[in-house]
């Protein structure tokens, strides 16, 4: 799929400090067009912080971030989104007093799906409906978002991003906390999103999901990249096993 190997998102030596602690430390990596790039690492490794500085929820302290040949680390969260770099949050966020459909409408209205071309009302409504269908939320469109269960909250957060036809979608633990059936459904959805040509950055704690979905994986530890490569290679890497995967994963695998 990533034959062309054209980088779409590039981080060069990025760091983020909280006080004296480096949550992300001199980190560089490239994500190629249309791949699924997995990110893993123990709790507190700095994965979410990395998403926060790429999307500019937090300002980056050092380094540069490039998206589609354009430096974005000085742009604001909202303008980065409008460029086509969308994200979800580890703790599901939602507009609780709006309906499911309105939640998606927010993305469609402010996210610039046609990249500069103003959409007419009908086209936008169709786009919203398609997105609700695609994420399996159509039946719940008129429910107030506050009433949704975890699975639907996660789906809705993805839908409000997808409706803007992003080029890159960053997912922060989209599967964590879900049961088997729901996990499978979300994994299938992530594959479908990727099939439509969307590049995916995927943080996930559940290793089978991450390894199963990703073409390449980066392992983080104490804010640094300790390993990067194809999933099966990474899984065998000594430092990774030591730092993170540990016995638990090996035990899991041998079951």
């Amino acid at each position, binding site marked *: 799929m990533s034959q062309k190997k054209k980088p779409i998102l590039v981080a060069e030596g990025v760091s983020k400090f909280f006080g004296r602690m480096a949550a992300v430390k001199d980190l560089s990596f490239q994500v190629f067009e249309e791949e699924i790039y997995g990110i893993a690492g123990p709790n507190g490794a700095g994965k979410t912080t990395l998403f926060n500085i790429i*999307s500019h*929820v937090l300002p980056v302290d050092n380094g540069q971030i490039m998206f589609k040949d354009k430096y974005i680390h000085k742009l*604001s*969260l*909202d303008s980065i*989104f*409008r460029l086509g770099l*969308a*994200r979800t*949050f580890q703790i599901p*966020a*939602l*507009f*609780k*007093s*709006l309906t499911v459909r*309105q939640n998606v*409408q*927010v*993305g469609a*209205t*402010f*996210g*610039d799906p046609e990249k500069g071309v103003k959409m007419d009302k009908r086209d936008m409504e169709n786009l919203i409906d398609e997105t609700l269908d695609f994420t399996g939320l159509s039946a719940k469109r008129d429910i*107030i978002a506050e009433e949704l269960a975890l699975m639907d909250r996660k789906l809705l*957060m993805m839908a*409000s*991003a997808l409706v*803007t036809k992003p080029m890159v979608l960053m997912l922060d633990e989209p599967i964590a906390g879900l049961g088997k059936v729901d996990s499978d459904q979300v994994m299938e959805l992530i594959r479908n999103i990727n099939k439509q040509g969307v590049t995916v950055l995927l943080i996930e704690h559940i290793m089978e999901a991450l390894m199963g979905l990703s073409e390449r994986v980066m392992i983080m530890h104490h804010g640094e990249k300790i390993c990067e490569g194809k999933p099966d290679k990474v899984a065998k890497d000594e430092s990774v096993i030591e730092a993170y995967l540990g016995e638990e994963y090996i035990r899991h695998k041998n079951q």
Partner: protein
Amino acid sequence: MKSNKFLLEILAIVLVLSVIPALVRQQYILHVIMLAMIFGIVASNWNLAIGYGGMFHLAQVPFFAAGGYSTAILSVHMGLSPLIGILVGGVAAVILSLIIGIPALRVRGIYLVFLTFAFHFIMLSLVLYFVDITGGDMGLILEPIRIGATNIDMFNPVVTYYTALSLFVLSLVFIKTIIDSKIGLALVSLRDSEVYAVSRGINPYKIKLVTFVLSSFLAGVCGAFYVHYLRVVTPALFDWSFLITFLASIVIGGVGTLYGPLLGAFILTFLMESLRFLEMFRNIVFGLLMILILIFMPKGLIMLANRAQSIFSSRQNSAGIVDEEN
């Protein structure tokens, strides 16, 4: 469907409020209803920022006062007519809202409260300082306007009442239009979760500033109207009782609802008039009322109306979903 419902509601309100002068002969009652309408407008515009946008600020009384003082100054010193003066009051409030909003809306939460609070006193000090223009402590008295050779009082009670009613309806349509627009969607999103809203492309500063400015206009108009109605402007326009009345109207009627602050303003204005004998203790009664509502009915008294309506409509169709919007 939805806009039809709104149209019917507006028609009902107009019908009721416009026949009142024919049925009620006491000038005093009309006076109170008119005050309720004016206070309701100021409160419900404030509610756009506080209730829908979740941005608490204390600039609404300065907006109101800016409208009142600007129109009074221009009519006393330059003979401006009341109708244009009312518009000028709105424009003055808009200018003030830009002056306050451009710096103040960059800060959030409690700082916005402090900054707007400070502005209240800066304005009051300016009014007291420029005695030649504002009349200082004594204020200004507005003469009835002369048009041509005759001495027509443009603000006779009937004209005044229907002017207030027109503003009332205008305000309702104005607010409903904003709520249903992109701005309304953005406001509620920002209130529900600011980071998430911004991560979905909303520019928070722009939306907040636009709302702040929009919600100042009718507050200024009402300040101007109020001053023309009383024919006098004094620093009492900055009085705490206004702040309490507007805020209590929102809380008692229903925060973040279309009709709540209007209902609240009617209840409060009538209470205010009928509890005059309590004097100072009146504010205690209002305070207690606010606390009780906040504890037992955080969505305000308008919820009672909604509940009644949903019970009624669930008899016709079984979809008894409470309409959160009103």
